[in-house]
């Protein structure tokens, strides 16, 4: 599953997209919900855990933590931005 990164999440990861495996060869748990995805990403990029306010879009709609995600979903991390 490919995740588009915006704002500070792009700066933290150092890339505008991120691939998350959809089947585990390492025994690591595969994220099935938005919340699990955030946790999964936070393990690799601890700086992401600091973001108290982070919108996640699944197929161009704002998604709550409980929403389930599938390998074919389009996912984007959209943190708030402040510049003007």
């Amino acid at each position, binding site marked *: 599953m490919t995740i588009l990164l915006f*704002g500070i999440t792009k700066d933290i990861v150092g890339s505008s997209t991120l691939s998350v495996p959809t089947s585990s060869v390492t025994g690591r748990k595969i994220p099935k919900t938005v919340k699990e995805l955030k946790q999964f990403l936070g393990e690799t990029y601890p700086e992401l855990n600091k973001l*108290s*306010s982070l*919108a996640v879009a699944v197929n161009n709609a*704002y998604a709550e933590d409980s929403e389930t995600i599938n390998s074919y979903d389009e996912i984007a991390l959209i943190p*708030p931005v402040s510049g*003007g």
Partner: protein
Amino acid sequence: MNSRYIRQTSLRDFGENGQAKLFKAKVLVVGLGGLGLPVLQYLNAMGVGTLGLMDQDVVEMHNLQRQVLYTEKDLGKLKLEVVHNKLTAQNSQTTFKTHDTFLTKENALKVIEKYDLVVDATDNFPTRYLINDACVILNKPFVYGALHGFEGHISVFNYNNGPTYRCLYPEMPNAEEIPNCNENGVLGVIPGIMGTLQALEAVKVLTGVGEVLSGKLMVYNGLNQFVSKISFKTIPENKKITRLQDFYEPVECDVIPSIGVNAFQTLRQSKEKYTLIDVRTTEEFDQSHLNEAINVPLDNLDNFERQISTDKEVYIICQSGKRSELALKHLQTAYPNLTFYHILGGMNKMMTVCP
């Protein structure tokens, strides 16, 4: 009505009717920076009848790279005055209301009440949340725009029953998690793109022409011209705000003055007198420091006064630029009459420009 607006009154979907609605409208633009200026240039050109201008900053050199209404002659002048003069010359039919202040919880409701629409062209979270809350309380729509590097956000919040800024981002991020606008760069033309898009959304709200971008966040990436529109819903409790919070963190971006290492190196080579404070630990300082630097470790800022002469500008440096910003905030509050700058990138960056 006159021939001035014929190119848009001749549009079937806009017409003299759209023009008349613009002329009757009162719009407050909060912030005369990268976003606010294109918003105002175009709303004024198109014939919005009453424009409110609000800002308290002066024009600085590093504004010119994106704030296109300002010229080199305007450096040091109040943005409010410069903008007021230039917009009056552009369209003498517009009524301008100038607000020589920042938006605060004390003035927000009283000011916004007098307008039909607010354009959020600020550069910091506290003011964005304040605009949101005040607009919800007063039942006014507002056009949101914000930037980060090559990216931008646009949406129209609190439009009819539509969602608010808090429906997208419920709570204000704290200062540590999202960089403020001084640490964060922006390509000069990005606010131009986002500001013109904001002006268009303002026109749509005021005239009823087209589909207002309500319930959708437009996320723009200039690097690849990629546009996403994210739909989101109204969270009813966010529409029920009845009073402002007691406290909106008073972080004004432009009260954290900073300087880049190149500019600072130029200063060092000039004849200008200044004071340089290095806020790293004594150990770090001893390993390497700039010749003229005085060591006042961050934990020891109370000793500041005893160590420096107070008739010169004070520059603050640390290793990476984080502690110097913290130090600046403390010192500026403690010594409001002194002028402080912190050095972006700190010693790390400084090493790249001085031998």
